[in-house]
């Protein structure tokens, strides 16, 4: 099964060290489009977590039956099937949220982080480890996208949690700034996502550099950003 140290290691790796949005720079397209508010960023990440955890688990279970030469098409098929399951369930039971996230649910399959974790982790590790790896990679995306969405929403519109009624009926968004706050449009538009993301990346690198300095280690070079849409 899985040990506590192993779990912690996978968690630290997914949520911080290899954070898909801040370090690997993967999934930039949904990041740009869906982090216009906290709720949207959070819900897209939740859908991604489900897909990543399940696809990691299923691939790890079936990995011995998948011939090496055709592993990529089979991985994609497994992940695409799970994305479709999430898509259909959302259309059925969370219709409002489904309308907001729209095309970005089926597009989870094009998020490189999904295939990247299957290929790099699930194809070589046990089912439980892979389930955790997928989920924790998603957790990294979750807190980053929620923070990014929250900042964009707060600066851009002066609200937080707007649109929560689509997830939990009866709840209302919060007006943080006074009602006559004019808004700051650029943070809601796609360029704002890049600008605020850059601040978050800088903040993460600053924390790492400070921690390194405290332990009198040489500052590690920021992990290279590969990047794909």
């Amino acid at each position, binding site marked *: 099964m899985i040990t506590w140290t192993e779990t912690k290691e996978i968690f630290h790796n997914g949520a911080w060290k290899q954070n898909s949005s801040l370090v690997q720079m993967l999934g930039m397209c949904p990041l740009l489009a869906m982090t216009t508010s906290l709720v949207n960023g959070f819900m897209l990440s939740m859908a991604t977590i489900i897909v990543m955890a399940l696809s990691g688990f299923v691939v790890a279970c079936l990995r011995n*039956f*998948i*011939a*090496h*030469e*055709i592993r990529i*098409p*089979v991985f994609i*098929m*497994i992940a695409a*099937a799970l994305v*479709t*399951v999430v898509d*259909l*369930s959302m*259309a*059925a*039971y969370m*219709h*409002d949220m489904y*309308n907001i996230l729209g095309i970005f649910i089926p597009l989870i399959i094009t998020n490189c982080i999904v295939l990247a974790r299957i290929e790099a982790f699930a194809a070589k590790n046990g089912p439980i480890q892979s389930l955790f790896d997928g989920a924790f990679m998603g957790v990294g995306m979750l807190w980053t996208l929620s923070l990014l969405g929250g900042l964009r929403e707060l600066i*851009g519109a002066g609200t937080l949690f707007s649109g929560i009624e689509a997830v939990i009926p009866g709840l209302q968004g919060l007006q943080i700034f006074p009602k006559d706050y004019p*808004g700051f*449009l650029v943070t*809601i*538009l796609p360029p704002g996502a890049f600008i605020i993301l850059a601040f978050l990346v800088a903040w993460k690198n600053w924390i790492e550099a400070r921690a390194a300095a405290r332990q009198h280690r040489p500052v590690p070079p920021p992990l290279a950003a590969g990047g794909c849409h």
Partner: protein
Amino acid sequence: MIHKTKPLTATTMASRTAVILFIFTIGFTTVLAGVYLLTKPAIDASSAQEKMRSIGEVLPPSNYDNELLTDTLVLPPTAELGLDDVSTVYRARLGGAPAALVLETVAPDGYSGKIRLLVGIRFDGSITGVRVTQHKETPGLGDYIDPKKDKNKDRPWITQFDGLSLDKVAPHNWKVKKDGGRFDSTAGATISPRAVVKAVAKALNYVAENRDKLYAAK
């Protein structure tokens, strides 16, 4: 996976991978078909509910007593309404008598592309409500045509159409104030409201000309 046994021939390798891929395809297609069948009733119910809700915004349910979603008419692409695709007209009746029509119309000249609208028009030609169903207007600027984005929550911009008809507002007044008409718009964002006003007037004209045909058609 490293094969320590003798290398496979091309034919065995090809047929082996084909069989594996085939089995996986069959397996996952079955899973998807099952999930589709399981979720279909819930999806249908949710989309019917959603349709009723958006219709309810332009036509309050107290105006009719028939089954709106079944008393429909499919319009072929209609140039007068800016529609280049088939659309559905919902026909509301009260005690069997025609009460109102809910139809789709498109403003082709929005600031960034088409603006799709849902318009409710009573039998006497007055508007019960207008809602934007789809648009790509600039967030924070032209998107106040959508009441969800309108800063004026008490009296959103789009509600100024309520109750108006071609009799109450003369044809040359179906314009924004900036163009000499009677409809308000926000300074700096007149293109979106101008397009909406024009499209609503076109829908009224279309219904005025085709009213009896629309109610009677099977």
